[in-house]
């Protein structure tokens, strides 16, 4: 979904932090994306290469760390990882599971070249 708008937002954020750090060039952008955040890595990468042209991000790598969806069962309190939004507890079978992690979508850090 709307990966173009999101990648534009990402580029703005990266360029702002790169400028603050007096970067000559951005080599790698380290993103954290939850499995349920709804963002397709290939699509982000595709737009990143296009939007980065003409900026100090040109040719930089988009490194994506995926976070698995983790749930807490509301019946027996077990915490478990499941590769689906429609989770059920593997211990007691309850469908009442609260999402604890997996919706993340943030810029973790940037690797840049600076003057010695």
């Amino acid at each position, binding site marked *: *979904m*709307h990966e173009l708008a*999101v990648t534009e*937002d*990402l580029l*703005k*954020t990266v360029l702002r*932090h*790169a400028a603050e*750090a007096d*970067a*000559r060039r951005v*080599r790698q952008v*380290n*993103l954290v994306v939850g499995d*349920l955040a*709804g963002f397709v890595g290939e699509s982000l990468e595709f737009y990143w290469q296009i939007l980065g042209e003409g900026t100090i991000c040109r040719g930089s790598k988009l490194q994506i760390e995926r976070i698995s969806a983790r749930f807490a069962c*509301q019946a027996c309190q077990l915490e478990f990882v499941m590769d689906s*939004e*429609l*989770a*059920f507890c593997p211990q007691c079978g309850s*469908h*009442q*599971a609260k*999402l604890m992690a997996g919706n993340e*979508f*943030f*810029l*973790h*850090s*940037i*690797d*840049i*070249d*600076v*003057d*010695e």
Partner: protein
Amino acid sequence: MKEIRVPVVERILNANDQVSEQNRGWLHKFGIFSINLMASPGAGKTSLILQTIARLSSRVSMGVIEGDTARVTMDADKVRQAGVPAVQVNTAGGCHLDAALIASALSQLPLAEMHLLLVENVGNLVCPASFRLGTDIDVLIASVPEGDDKPFKYPAIYRGLQALILNKIDLLPYVSFDMDNFRKGVEMLNPGVAFFPVSCRTGEGLDSWADWLESRTRQGTQSSD
């Protein structure tokens, strides 16, 4: 030249979140309770707004923001004909409303005279779930002809809701819609969410929705997160 790592830790779409927080602060300053109404195209968002106006406008002063992707004003026109101030927002092809569009629309509404704001999002079950507007609660209007499998297919939007409306229940005898399966999907994603089966055509169920909304509005902004 040397290579260094600069720690950032900043949420993407942070700019939208910041504007949405401004919207929320602005609405709360005026004591306005606000809801973001989402649905697929044709589920009955505008019909529900008109039915809500018919039941509540004598008791609660309202305003409406109508979102559409095309440059049309027909929805806002209908709301104004019903005697409620409305602003039409066109996203020029965009698939969702965002906080900046709401900020601009708010400046065109008589906020000092309002207690309730209804925002009709663009008809779409995917993108609106990712963009906060600054409203107090998210409400989805599902409808019987869409099928009972929609919670399973669009989990992200169902997960974040504070209320779920199922419209067009007058069609239940004519289409295959497994209510148990629908409810099961909803309970998995959003246990205990307020649920209102309604028909905007016959009026069934709309009174309890309107009563709930009035009560939430009177609780005001205190109970919202």
